C-alpha cells in the first residue's frame, strides 16, 4: 500500500475535493499538482488520455480516473483505517446509489443555476432544491450520511457546499432557507480537518464563477 501518491487537480473542482478529502481521512501523504486547464500538462494527457480531465490519482505510477472511482480505490487500498464505505453489501449499494444520484443531478443542476437567467434559472433553482431535499431525506436524523462518521456519500456531496454561496449569489436565493438540515450537516462536516482543508474558501469560488461568467460572456 505504500508508494508515491500524486494528485493532478484544479483547486475549484468539487470532484478533486472528493479525492483530497478521502486522502486526508486516511492520512495519506501525497504530492498535489495544480493543473492549468487551458494548458494541460503532458502528465495529465498521458495519465488520462480518454477524458483529459482532472482529478487524476496516480499511485505507484498508475493512474486512477474519475473521482468516485478514486475514493473507492483509496478506501479499498488503505482499508485498515477510517472506512468510507460500510461493510454491509446492502448499505454499500445504497451509498453507491446516492453517490451516483449526486453525480447525475447536483453538478449539472448547480451549473445551470449560475450559468442561466430568467425562466431557465428559476427552473434550475427549483430542480436543484428538489434534489437537495431528496438528499436531506436520505440524511434523516443521522449526523452524517455515513452514520456516526464521514462516509462515501458525505465525501461525494460536501465539496458542493463550497459552491453553494456562489450559487446563492448568482441565483438570488437561500439554500439554507430551503434545506436547513443539509446546511447543518455541511457545517458539521466542515468541523472535520479533512474537509476544512480540502475545500477552498467560498468567496474564492464566487470570484472564480464571476471570472468564468466573464469568459463565457454570461451576465
Amino acid at each position, binding site marked *: 500500500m505504500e508508494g508515491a501518491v500524486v494528485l493532478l487537480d484544479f483547486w475549484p473542482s468539487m470532484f478533486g475535493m472528493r479525492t483530497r478529502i478521502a486522502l486526508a481521512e486516511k492520512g495519506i501523504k501525497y504530492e498535489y499538482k495544480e493543473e492549468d486547464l487551458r494548458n494541460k500538462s503532458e502528465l495529465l494527457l498521458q495519465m488520462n488520455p*480518454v477524458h483529459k480531465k482532472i482529478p487524476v490519482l496516480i*499511485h505507484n505510477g*498508475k493512474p*486512477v*480516473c*474519475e473521482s468516485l*472511482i*478514486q475514493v*473507492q*480505490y483509496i478506501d*479499498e*487500498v488503505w482499508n485498515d483505517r477510517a472506512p468510507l464505505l460500510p461493510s454491509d*453489501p*446492502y448499505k*454499500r*449499494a*445504497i451509498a*453507491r*446509489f446516492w453517490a*451516483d*444520484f449526486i453525480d447525475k443531478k447536483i453538478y449539472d443542476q448547480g451549473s445551470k443555476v449560475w450559468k442561466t437567467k430568467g425562466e431557465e434559472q428559476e427552473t434550475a433553482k427549483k430542480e436543484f432544491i428538489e434534489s437537495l431535499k*431528496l438528499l436531506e431525506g436520505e440524511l434523516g436524523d443521522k449526523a452524517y450520511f455515513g452514520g456516526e462518521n464521514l462516509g462515501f456519500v458525505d465525501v461525494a456531496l460536501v465539496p458542493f457546499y463550497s459552491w453553494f454561496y456562489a450559487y446563492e449569489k448568482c441565483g438570488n436565493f437561500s439554500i439554507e432557507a430551503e434545506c436547513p438540515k443539509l446546511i447543518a450537516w455541511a457545517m458539521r462536516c466542515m468541523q472535520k480537518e479533512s474537509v476544512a482543508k480540502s475545500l477552498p474558501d467560498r468567496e474564492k469560488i464566487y470570484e472564480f464563477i464571476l471570472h468564468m461568467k466573464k469568459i463565457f460572456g454570461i451576465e
Partner: protein
Amino acid sequence: MADEVKLFGMWASPYSRRVELALKLKGIPYEYIEEDLSNKSSLLLKYNPVHQKIPVLVHNGKSIPESLVILEYIDETWRNNPVLLPRDPYKRSIARFWAKFIDEKILITTRKVSFTTGKEQDQAMEELSEQLKLLENELKGKPYFAGEAIGYLDIVVANFLVFWFRNLQEALGINMFTKERFPIIFEWIEKVVAIDVVEVCRIPKERHLVYIRTRLEAIKSASK
C-alpha cells in the same frame, strides 16, 4: 430463511439484461417481473421512487436500483464463482472506469448516431468507432475483459454491444461495427456467446428490430 430475489426489468433494456446475466451466471434463482414502461407498476414506483426506472433488484424486500450498483451488490452478496469484479483494487478501478465510459460516453454517441443523418451521422459514427477502439484496447492479451473468465465488464459490454448495438445498427441500416474493423472484440464475442446462459439472456432479435424501428419513428415524429 430462503432468499427471495425479484428483478423488475424490461425485455429490450441492455441495463435490465445485464443484471439478468449476472444472476444467471451466479446461478441465483429469481422472479422476473416485466415492466410496461408506458404504464409503470406501483411496485416499481415504490421500489425506485427517486428515478422510477428499471432495472430494480429486490432482495428479501430490500430494493437496489441502478444496474451497475446492482452488479456490485450481486457480487458482494453471492460470493460464488464467477467472481464478477477483480479482487485487485487497481484492476477493479479500471473495470469501473470502462463501465462508466460505456454508460456515459458511448451511450451519448450512439444516440447521436441514431438521431442524425448525413455528415452529422458520419461524424457521430467516427466518434463511436474511436470509442469502441479504446474499448477494444482493453481486451488486448486477455481472453475476457475480466481476464481468464467472464466478469463485470464483459457483462456490461456484451449487453451493450453484442445484444443491443448490433440490432440497433441493423435497424438504422448502418454497418460500422464489423469483424473487419474490430477483430479482437469479435473474437471475444464468439467466446461470450458460447456460454449457455449468455444465449438465454440475449434480447430476441426480430422483436427487438421491430421495437427499435417503432421507437425511432415515434421519437423522430415527436421532434418534428
